[in-house]
């Protein structure tokens, strides 16, 4: 039951990795700006305001489709968690990994 709930929460939250976040931000601003500009220019050149409306709405729908769901390519660069310190071996797995916080070495 808990596993099922966890899975449901993962789907609902749809988290993506840091590089994915940078990518999705770039895509949101680019796609919406382009669709807005295109909508105005096409409508103005054909003198048909309905074209502006529909191109703008279609561009927005496309942006929602591309940017909102956690598509796999937003999760290509996940940051791995460190192993737990309470693991067998008293944190032997931490050997060889240097952790720095504010320039100070912690381990």
């Amino acid at each position, binding site marked *: 039951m808990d596993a099922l709930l966890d899975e449901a929460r993962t789907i609902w939250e749809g988290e993506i990795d840091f590089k994915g976040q940078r990518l999705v931000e770039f895509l949101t601003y680019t796609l919406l700006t382009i669709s807005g500009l295109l909508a105005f220019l096409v409508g103005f050149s054909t003198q048909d305001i309905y074209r*502006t409306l529909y191109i703008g709405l279609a561009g927005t729908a496309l942006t929602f489709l591309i940017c909102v769901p956690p598509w796999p390519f937003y999760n290509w660069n996940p940051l791995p968690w460190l192993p737990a310190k309470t693991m067998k071996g008293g944190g032997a797995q931490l050997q060889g990994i240097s952790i720095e916080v504010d320039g100070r070495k912690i381990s």
Partner: protein
Amino acid sequence: MHNTLTRVQNVFGFFTSVAFAAAAAIAISVLLSPQAPTASLELRSVQVVKGRPHYYSTKREEYAHIKFDLDADLTTLFNWNTKQIFLYITASYPSSDPSTIPPSEAVIWDAIIPSNYAPWHQNTYIHPTPKATTKVKKTAKKGKKEIGKAYPAGAQPGIIKLDGQKPKYQITDVSSKIADRSNATLTLHWNIQPWVGALVWTNTKTVGRWQGLQGGEAKFNFPPLKGTEVKKDELKTETGGERNRGSPA
């Protein structure tokens, strides 16, 4: 942007900014489309009688019934951002003391002229068919009912050709006396209603690419009061599409 909900919020938030910017660009772009409206407005007849001008009038008073001819070309007012124009004709006449009291102004006729892209609405104006073509129309009418347009057949929105048009509204004065007033003016006005942007009223001066209205004014005097020699038929008014509003009585 780390989870679905924030992504929805961010995309929608920026969409509103883009939509606002596009709307602002559309509203400003109308300044680029040239306008050159022309109109010829003439008084056909004016009669002043005494009676109850409306069904709900509580007193008998003098009222004026003004017929006019209008030949207007307002097609350039219809650009890509024009939804419809509200066209109206006023009669204005100076007050008894022009230095302190402003002139009176009353609407005698109006019409909503939609653009070809505007959705159909029952209140919009239906241009009367010129008399010469009514006989030809009758034979074609048998098949299906033709939907009237706000301009003569074969023309485009903004063309108005009215010959001896009855007023929609008789006009009265607050003093109940309107006969024998002189220096009155019939004036054509409009209000352009865009899809997005500002409402624009009649401009008589040239601003940028928008030329002022040429013509659209007629001087006249109100005649003396007439008695019962005026036939009721002569004083009929036009009803617009808005008579359909609300439930049928």
